[in-house]
């Protein structure tokens, strides 16, 4: 079993909908949680960074971490066609990743229909 599980999708929703993206993980040592957005043939772009459990909001994006359930979520409000991309969750036990680097999920391919 992979350390981080993420549904690859594709997830297709109409413009304006609220999108919910999720990852589960098995390593209880993970404390640093990130969400990256990756457009085709581009590098991952950091969207949200959270430490330990809790919520963090930035514009239309909200990240939630539930360490007791080993479950993290990213919510996108008022979704736009430009949000269509692959969303990767990433996590680590140490800031910067340490010897293992960041552990990524496989990514969820999101399609926002105009």
């Amino acid at each position: 079993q992979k350390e981080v599980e993420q549904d690859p999708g594709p997830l297709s929703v109409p413009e304006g909908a609220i999108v919910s993206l999720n990852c589960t993980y098995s390593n209880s040592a993970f404390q640093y949680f990130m969400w990256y957005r990756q457009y085709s043939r581009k590098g991952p772009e950091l969207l949200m960074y959270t430490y330990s459990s809790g919520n963090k909001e930035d514009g239309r994006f909200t990240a939630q971490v539930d360490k007791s359930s080993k479950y993290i979520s990213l919510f996108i409000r008022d979704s736009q066609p430009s949000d269509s991309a692959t969303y990767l969750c990433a996590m680590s036990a140490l800031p910067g990743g340490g010897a293992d680097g960041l552990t990524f999920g496989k990514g969820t391919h999101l399609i926002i229909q105009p």
Partner: protein
Amino acid sequence: AAGVIQSPRHLIKEKRETATLKCYPIPRHDTVYWYQQGPGQDPQFLISFYEKMQSDKGSIPDRFSAQQFSDYHSELNMSSLELGDSALYFCASSSSWDRNYGYTFGSGTRLTVV
């Protein structure tokens, strides 16, 4: 704002040849990371450098080596290339002063081995 610069953007090499990938981190970032992303795969951590010294080592093959120079740019040297080395290679950088903010990826170098 300045981003992580990688060169070249695309590279085509034959089997058993060598390749050198370059990464220029964000100014004042002192840590550089290298990741490999195969088609449809999540990024895999290769190696990282902090203040020009190797910091952590992930799943980097022995055929690969890397270093960070005095101006903080980094190079990934790949020898005896194999077809399976075809992938996107990302460099990322971070500041040890700001490790709570994740790190920034470059746009990647697409290596094709034929």
